[in-house]
């Protein structure tokens, strides 16, 4: 295994580059072929610019060049760290994504951790009480959440906690009309709670149901039977065998669910007008903001890839069958 490590890293890096390359080609082609006119989105529909001036700008931007040439130009700039200017925000795409991502990452990571911990705990709890009232309640709850659309759930939560009870603000990441210097961490947390709650709730169902199923499977396994035959108490069964054997697949599942988390985040942010990548994506799509859309596509591909990669690596570290698989006796 140790000798294979550099090769492993190289193969992963290769796969990541290939993925980014394919994602960029696909999204670039899609955007170019889409009925979006970058020039029109830039100057606006009611522009008074003459046709000649417009053609001049198009030539300057290289819009008249064939697709491969335009892609080559974009990649060349990308390699220099230039993702272009966002039409929507009138700022470089890099700084827009950077700022937006910092909001989204906080939201996503917290939702990821909470849904993972709560979902795992609920799954273990339900699995131990299989067939009981608590189990059936948790199962129903998860199935409902799994089937409910995120934006609808978000609206429901928003109208209940924010509009009806007035406990939380109904949008944005910071209070409106307050100076940046006066915004406290408390304000930020207060604004984060509802979107976080929504995103946690929508991600919790899968991990709970999965853990519950895994627990039941393990409880019926031969090695639990034998552990009981060896005189292990219920407590020992849980701490010696059950937690480890259920946590491993649960962690893997949680890491590989980054893509769904990303999708859920985009919807939750839109409902709560939370200024993260999700709302930026919506805005970019509505405004025909080609550079920003491309940038977000790349970043999200990278994000989801990292999730899956971490899941793979973790499995290798935690599961002895993979970690020491080479050391056969």
């Amino acid at each position, binding site marked *: 295994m140790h000798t294979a490590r550099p090769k492993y890293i190289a193969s992963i890096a290769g796969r990541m580059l290939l993925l980014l390359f394919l994602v960029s080609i696909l999204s670039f082609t899609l955007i170019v072929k889409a009925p979006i006119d970058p020039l029109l989105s830039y100057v606006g529909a009611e522009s008074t610019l003459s046709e000649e001036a417009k053609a001049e700008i198009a030539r300057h931007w290289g819009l008249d060049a064939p697709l491969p040439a335009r892609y080559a130009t974009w990649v060349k700039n990308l390699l220099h760290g230039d993702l272009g200017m966002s039409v929507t925000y009138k700022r470089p795409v890099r700084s827009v994504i950077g700022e937006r991502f910092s909001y989204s990452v906080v939201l996503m990571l917290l939702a990821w951790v909470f849904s993972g911990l709560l979902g795992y705990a609920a799954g273990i709890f339900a699995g131990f009480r299989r067939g009981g009232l608590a189990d059936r309640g948790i199962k129903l709850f998860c199935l409902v959440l799994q089937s409910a659309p995120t934006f609808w759930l978000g609206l429901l939560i928003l109208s209940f906690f924010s509009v009806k009870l007035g406990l939380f603000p109904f949008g944005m990441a910071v209070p409106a009309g307050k100076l940046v210097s006066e915004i406290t961490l408390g304000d930020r947390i207060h604004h984060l709670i509802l979107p976080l709650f929504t995103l946690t709730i929508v991600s919790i169902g899968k991990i709970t149901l999965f853990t519950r199923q895994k627990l039941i499977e393990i409880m019926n396994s031969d090695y639990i039977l034998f552990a009981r035959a060896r005189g292990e108490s219920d407590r020992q069964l849980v701490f010696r*065998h059950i937690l480890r*054997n259920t946590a491993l697949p649960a962690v893997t599942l949680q890491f590989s669910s980054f893509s769904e988390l990303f999708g859920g985040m985009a919807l939750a942010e839109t409902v709560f007008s939370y200024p993260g990548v999700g709302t930026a994506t919506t805005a970019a799509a509505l405004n025909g903001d080609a550079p920003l859309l491309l940038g977000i596509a790349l970043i999200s591909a990278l994000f989801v890839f990292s999730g899956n990669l971490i899941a793979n690596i973790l499995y290798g570290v935690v599961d002895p069958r993979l970690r*020491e698989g080479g050391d056969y*006796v």
Partner: protein
Amino acid sequence: MTSKDTPVLAVRELQISFSMYRKGLRKESLRVIRSLSLDVRKGEIVAVVGSSGAGKSLLAHAVLGILPSNAVTEGEILYKGETLTPALQRKYRGTEIALIPQSVDYLDPLMRVGKQAACAGGGPEAQRAARAAFARYGLEPRVERLFPFQLSGGMARRVLIVTAVVARPALIIADEPTPGLGAEAATETLRHFRQLADGGAAVLLITHDIDLALHVADRIAVFYAGTTAEIAPAEDFKRGRDALRHPYSKAFLDALPQNAFKPIAGAQPYAGRPPQACLFADRCPERTNACAGAVAMRALRGGEVRCIHAT
């Protein structure tokens, strides 16, 4: 109250049934073991042989108290003359009564085998006992650090035995310990059992392989459709069919490859069948009308048999 003659394990008229739902919500009780009686004494190996589905493993699970929750047991199981209640079973599991399972699949795949073997007591004491047991079976200390998937076939068998004997139990139940093993490996495993018995343990060996059982067991109980058809000294099985008592044991012996290799017509009755009568009657060459009446276990020529015609 424990005298020298008190069997380590005595099973009296054990019945095991499972309640299950069939065709919607109709709850039905399926009797899998009916009227099983058996003794195992100190220093003795008693083999329980029978074909698949005869309920052999359930006997082991019933003694240890690890049957699934929908199982209902009746009858009596005595350990050294004391009725095994669930509380006692919990107390004795892994210390007084140990199980040797079939294969390495019965070990936690994510835990090092040394740690699994040392579970009985927990602390450093158990760790030392486990280490000594590993050494007794010719396993190097490094084996303790291995995961189950890293064990070779030979190591796995010895590790499984070690997990059972760490606490030096008085009763060892081996459930199909030799499936798919070559003759040599199987013989080695059985030799370990003989050693354990000679060392003072009572061994209950559950197997479908009568041939192997013959080599090590002192007495053999032939299991048929959840009952004991015959319990006889192993000697009788070696002497041939005429020394046996029950028509099923005779047929069982005839079906062995080195004997006539003669299969017996018909199939074992389905577990749900109720009769008090002889369960083998359908396939028995000596059947008479009297076989439909109640047939109980009775002593005969130094063994026991559940057949009214046996002589």
